[in-house]
């Protein structure tokens, strides 16, 4: 279909092509730069806590360990097994503490409370504490991501 006038002038057309391709060239660099700026901070696949450190714990007592960059807690259950928590408050990421004689977790930032199973019972925390799988293997307790 023939149109009575040109859609673009030669100048505008060339300017647009140049500008467009320059933008495309630049766009190819965005992703590598972003990858550089935001490197993956990966959590460990598993953490090994020596059995010697935890086998003498009384039931409902706990020992802290490091889950990558985050703090963790290994709690002994009645039947001798262990439960592992990531002791980061689900409200705004403060580190929570375990008050052994009350068998509760407490977050000092906004007075959030969790019970001994990590369930959020009082204060602002919207969700229970994150749990990890803890299995005794040989002379260590292996903590892994659940599932």
């Amino acid at each position, binding site marked *: 279909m023939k149109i009575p006038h040109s859609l673009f002038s030669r100048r505008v057309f060339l300017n647009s092509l140049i500008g467009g391709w320059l933008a495309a*060239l630049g766009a190819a660099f965005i992703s590598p730069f972003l990858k550089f700026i935001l490197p993956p901070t990966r959590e460990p696949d598993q953490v090994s806590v020596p059995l010697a450190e935890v086998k003498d714990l009384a039931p409902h007592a706990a020992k802290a360990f490091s889950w990558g960059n985050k703090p963790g807690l290994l709690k002994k259950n009645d039947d001798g097994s262990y439960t592992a928590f990531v002791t980061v408050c689900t409200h705004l990421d403060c580190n929570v503490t375990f008050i052994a004689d009350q068998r509760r977790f407490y977050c000092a930032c906004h007075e959030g409370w969790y019970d001994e199973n990590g369930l959020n019972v009082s204060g602002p925390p919207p969700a229970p504490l994150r749990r990890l799988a803890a299995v005794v293997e040989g002379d260590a307790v292996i903590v892994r991501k659940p599932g």
Partner: protein
Amino acid sequence: MGRPCLYGGHVGLEPAVMSERRLAMAAIAALVLLSSFASGMLETQVQTVPQAPVGPAAAKTPGQGTVAAPRPAQERMAVGVLLAWVWLSIAVLLGLLRLRVREADRVFRFGLDRAAGKTHQDPKP
């Protein structure tokens, strides 16, 4: 009505609505931008998860010099693709720039910008 424009020697009027040319330009621009952004993403996508643990895979004895070559094979490929894209783009852009420079020189030589100034004010040559 749209603003007056010089088309092939005669003065015409640009259609006032979101004209076909604007639409066409926008569509082309979006397509090119999106595809190159996507290609950039794809080429780096290849080296996401394995990157961190594989990282310093080459032999690096402590206390010796580190050699900075692209390590994981995926990153090496990504850089190769990036370099190829850069040189392809440079070739294309140089060609386009050559056309544009010829156009600009032609305009200057024949005094077309000054002549056009008499019929309308187009600040962008």
